[in-house]
């Protein structure tokens, strides 16, 4: 049976989907294919590329800074994913209870997400340097300062966004099940871990996916906060790729090769994560 709206969609879908699809092809598919091709080329600007086989990949694999940055990125993604999701969920849980001014708090927590990464990086650089100055230090003194500074910044920025998704998820948890659980004598802990969280798995899938990929792709904030200082030690992998591509003449292809390697790693991680969390999704 086709509803009226189904009919309309069948007639008009192209009008709505195609412009976006076109943008997707121009902005994503084409650059992606071009990028993979360029990773096998030697080039200065993307117009005069000559294929050179796997040389770029060989150089990328030999670059120790790349692997250090990659390792750092993995730990960054793990740390931020845990903190953001746990805190984001906790705040969402709090704000779905009847607290006075819950809506205002929701808006406030969401706001940091509206500020661009570069600006955030600068602002937090000032803030953190101002604090570190008390101990005669600055963000670039050691890579640990840069790393944890970035963790603080990103948590501050993204917790609100994940909170919104969790709030939507929490509100969708059927109240009758919770009431039934209460009648059966479940305590708050049991309700949370045995009912709410299993029912929230779809939201958790989405949020962990977003935070993991955001963690891996972290760039603007890294660039603005420390720029990799000191001596590229606080650099995450996206910044390393950018630097290889733009700062080194003759290494454009190597940067491109690193980007492809990076893509493969992130794709694998994201797929694993998706499989892991979706397998735990249940129906009420």
């Amino acid at each position, binding site marked *: 049976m086709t509803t009226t709206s189904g009919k309309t969609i069948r007639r*008009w879908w192209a*009008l*709505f989907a*195609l*412009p976006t699809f*076109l*943008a997707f092809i*121009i902005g994503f598919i084409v650059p992606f294919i071009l990028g993979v091709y360029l990773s096998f080329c030697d080039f*200065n*600007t*993307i*117009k*005069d590329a000559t294929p050179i086989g796997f040389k770029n990949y060989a150089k990328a694999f030999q670059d120790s800074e790349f692997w250090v940055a990659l390792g750092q990125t993995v730990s960054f993604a793990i740390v931020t994913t845990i903190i953001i999701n746990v805190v984001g969920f906790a705040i969402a849980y709090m704000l779905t209870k009847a607290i006075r001014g819950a809506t205002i708090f929701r808006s406030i927590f969401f706001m940091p997400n509206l500020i661009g990464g570069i600006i955030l990086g600068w602002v937090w*650089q000032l803030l953190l*340097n101002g604090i570190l*100055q008390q101990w*005669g*230090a*600055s*963000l*670039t*003194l*050691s890579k640990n300062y840069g790393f944890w500074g970035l963790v603080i910044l990103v948590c501050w920025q993204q917790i609100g966004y994940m909170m919104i998704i969790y709030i939507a998820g929490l509100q969708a948890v059927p109240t009758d099940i919770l009431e039934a659980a209460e009648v059966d004598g479940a305590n708050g802990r049991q309700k949370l871990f045995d009912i709410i969280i299993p029912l929230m798995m779809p939201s958790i899938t989405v949020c962990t996916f977003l935070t993991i990929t955001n963690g891996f792709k972290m760039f603007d904030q890294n660039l603005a906060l420390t*720029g990799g*200082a*000191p*001596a*590229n030690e606080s650099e995450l992998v996206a910044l390393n790729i950018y630097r290889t591509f*733009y*700062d*080194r*003449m*003759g*290494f*454009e292809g190597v940067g491109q090769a690193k980007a492809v390697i990076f893509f493969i790693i992130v794709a694998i991680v994201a797929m694993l994560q998706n499989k892991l969390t979706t397998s735990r999704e249940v129906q009420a």
Partner: protein
Amino acid sequence: MDSKMKKAIALVAVGAMSLTTLAACGNSNSGSSDKKGQVYYLNFKPEVANEWKSLAKEYTKETGVKVTVQTAASDTYEQRLKSEMGKSNPPTLFQVNGPVGYANWKAYTADMSDTTPYKLLKSKDYALTDGKKVTGIAYVVETYGLIYNKDLLDKYFQADWSTVKSMKDLNNFKALKTVADEIQAHKADLGVEGAFTSAGFDSSSDWRFKTHLANLPLYYELQQRHIKTQPATVKGTFLPQYKQIFDLYLKDSTTDPKQLGSKTGEDATAEFAQGKAVFYQNGTWAWSDLQKAGMKASSVSMMPIYIGVKGEEKQGLATGSENYWCINSKASEADQKATKAFLKWVVTSEAGKNAISKKMGFTTPFKGFPTTSDNPLVEAAQKDLDSGTKAVAWDFSLMPSEQWKNNLGGALLKYAQGTGSWNDVKTAYVDGWASEYKATH
């Protein structure tokens, strides 16, 4: 609202959306089809970005030829150039920093031997050539050294606790160290916070040390080895002197070395302009910023950077150019022609000459430009030249790559903060040179 009306609105909205998407793709090749051609200059110097923009506007008003000026942020020129060159409307006029920069963009440089700026060069040494064609023309000659605050230094000379009593005696590293140490010890008496401004290592200003200061040991080594072109290896013979001067910058400074990582060039400018420091390593180009910060021309001058090499009493300021104009050979014929015409106008018209020498405060290597300047640092450079000292050449244009400089900068910062050793600096300088030379050749 009936459904037809809704449909119509939806259609219009979608149409508008897809149009903007398409427009974004179609935009890029407008302009160059114009017979007059157009000029697109990717400027290297952020401190004169506005001056170039207004000069371009004036030219467009006079001739009707479109001139676009874009400026790359400090220390991002190569990145910017690379991405702009890849676009369908690439810069028609761009800059390289010397022989090494030229090697990267070889395939993009047109012959400039028929251009007016080349004909007007006072010395053909200011042009880059590949043996057959002229590929780049220096348009500004700059000088760097230790900028000092005359009033504060005079106060020091007159103080009863000072050992060095005049500028004449301040002509070697030992004297410089004495002066700096004494100023540091009596900073309250002079009302300063340190002898030297903070050696900021923010990535947009660490070129003062990884490039300009590093030029001195390089210059002396190349002199000693009688080398004029880029060597495959360096020995680092004068690194102990490099350490000596850098240590002095760190010790007699306004700022705790641990905080240098977050200090910028603007911080140093501000400290100097506010009279919080006596010495400031920078060059003639710094005047426009110092002037904007409220300094009087009469209280600023510049002296050579002494690092403790034998016979350095005869050493002058470091003078050279890292600003070469190149015309993009891959731009359309019309655009190349328009660019040449624009350059001619810049170096011959009153408006152009005035903008370059007065508003931007540059010393140019071209005939027909005024030889005097309002820039006290240019005056100091001129005086230094006339006094018979030997100018230090800008050998940093031979440094193997940006990567080499960045690695050196990273090692210097870690050494300054106390989180790395001088040995790492040495490694970055000597071993880094060999490996970067290999990687780029």
